[in-house]
């Protein structure tokens, strides 16, 4: 009898409904990704059909003659990201080392919170700062100096305009710095205190503890975190669009204007007048989506498979 009254108050179908509802919300995420891929592919089809694989290696981007190639933007995306990583990774490592080993203990929570808050600042703010504060400074002081002293390297030749790949790389580096620093710090903090204390007990210096105990212990985590940062940097739009100058030209000089996939989309998407132009832009989006998907997927897979060791 009690069985009976219970099932009347809480009928079984409510249970199934609840499970079904949550399950379909979860499935919606998969569906969204699948539909996104399909829609991008469908809308890019005129361009895929027209240019085939040549789209990926052609440097020709000319809306007037209906010739579209993605090579310049793909190179731009890779170079700006590489530049940003080159600058940000050592800095982030230094900041993480400072936060976990060097800074006075009572200051650590304050610094950590500050870093996390800075990671939350929208990228458009970094873009504004890059365009109006950093670019003029680079153009007036840093770039002329570099051309004078390092000008024998083709990378640092060219007009000191302040707008270009060089500035974009720096802005991107500053933008991902807080994110990377907090990821690396989290990994460093996972090292068991006992291991560190044992090393100190053997007479190791702080640097030796970090390099020979903390770093090997969290290496996989650091690599995964760097890949996450890389994936984010590649898809970043606003911080780059403001300062890169949007020029569809390949150049050895980092000082020349260039573009990335994301900045091209931001600048040209609403201006695309005909179908093929729009399709080519959507194909750019598809390429970006696939590249970041692979990078982020590798990062996730890597982190997942290294997780048990980190938990130790």
């Amino acid at each position: 009898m009690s069985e009976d009254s219970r099932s009347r108050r809480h009928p079984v179908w409510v249970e199934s409904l609840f499970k079904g509802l949550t399950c379909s919300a979860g499935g919606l995420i998969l569906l969204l990704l699948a539909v996104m891929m399909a829609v991008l592919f469908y809308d890019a089809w005129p361009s895929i059909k027209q240019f085939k694989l040549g789209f990926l290696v052609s440097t020709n981007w000319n809306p007037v003659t209906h010739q579209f190639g993605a090579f310049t933007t793909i190179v731009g995306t890779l170079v700006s990201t590489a530049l940003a990583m080159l600058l940000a990774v050592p800095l982030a490592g230094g900041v993480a080392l400072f936060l976990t080993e060097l800074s006075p203990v009572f200051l650590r929570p304050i610094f950590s919170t500050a870093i996390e808050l800075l990671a939350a600042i929208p990228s458009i703010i970094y873009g504004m700062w890059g365009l109006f504060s950093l670019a003029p400074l680079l153009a007036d002081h840093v770039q002329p100096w570099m051309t004078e002293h390092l000008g024998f390297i083709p990378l640092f030749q060219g007009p000191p305009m302040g707008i270009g790949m060089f500035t974009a790389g720096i802005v991107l580096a500053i933008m991902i710095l807080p994110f990377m620093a907090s990821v690396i710090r989290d990994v460093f903090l996972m090292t068991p205190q006992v291991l560190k204390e044992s090393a100190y007990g053997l007479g190791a210096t702080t640097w030796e503890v970090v390099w020979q105990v903390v770093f090997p212990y969290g290496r996989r985590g650091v690599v995964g975190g760097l890949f996450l940062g890389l994936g984010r940097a590649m898809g970043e739009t606003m911080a780059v669009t403001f300062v890169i100058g949007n020029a569809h030209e390949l150049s050895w000089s980092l000082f020349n204007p260039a573009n990335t996939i994301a900045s091209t989309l931001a600048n040209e998407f609403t201006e695309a007048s005909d179908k093929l132009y729009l399709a080519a832009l959507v194909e750019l989006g598809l390429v970006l989506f696939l590249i970041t998907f692979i990078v982020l997927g590798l990062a996730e897979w890597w982190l997942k498979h290294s997780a048990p060791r980190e938990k130790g």
Partner: protein
Amino acid sequence: MKSRSVRIRRFKNALALICSLVAALIGLVFLIWILIEVILRGAACINWAFFTQLPVPPGEEGGGLANAMLGTVIITVVATVLGVPLGILAGTYLSEFGRNRFGDTIRFLSNIFVSAPSIVIGVFVYAILVVPLGGFSGLAGGVSLAIIMLPVVTRTTEEMLRLVPNSVREAALALGAPYWHVVWQVVYRSARAGMLTGIILAIARVSGETAPLLFTALNSPYWPEGLMEPMANLTVTIFNYAMSPYDDWQVKAWGASLLIMVAVLAMNIIARVFVHRMGK
């Protein structure tokens, strides 16, 4: 007298620590520079008109960005209404039922989705909403932000529900409550503060997004007139004004930047206070 190897080790140590200190200082200098620049340049144009008036054409004195502020709030509310309930449901599935291959797949893909390029989501929403509906709209802007929110809320909800001890669930089940009742009345209640924190952080994240709004909500110099019309919003206004050659527009872009930055940081700080309270 100390041996040579000890001196070398000491020297290496000092060198590494100095490098670390310099790195931290460089990072700090740049970030403080950004904050000060935004605050100083932004504060210069903040006045009563900035919050209450419509934009004026370049060259004219005065005017404000009241329509863009209202538009940003509307678009964010639309995104929250669409994205948060779905995210909570999906997170509930992952935490309560998702210990299987389907759950693992969702978890894996939503982790990637969290960092997916937001501009591509803008392109996607352009294709599925803007083209069929025949024009840019605030609704499309809200939907694109909701798509960005969905995986964020899903992941934080799962994490927060996982923190609720299983013994609590078992105790409620032992009293005869059906599972949905346990989740609704017991698990959600225990995880309330954490879930709210996640939601606030997700709102903070999308309210500063620009890229997905460029081809969905577009922008407009007028008051928001309905969800089916192009809608003014702060972030796209910053982009348009900053790229314009007019000084007074560029000044307004700084004002809008300050506003967005303060709002995002405030939401983050509020979220942190919630976490702190929960910890006690």
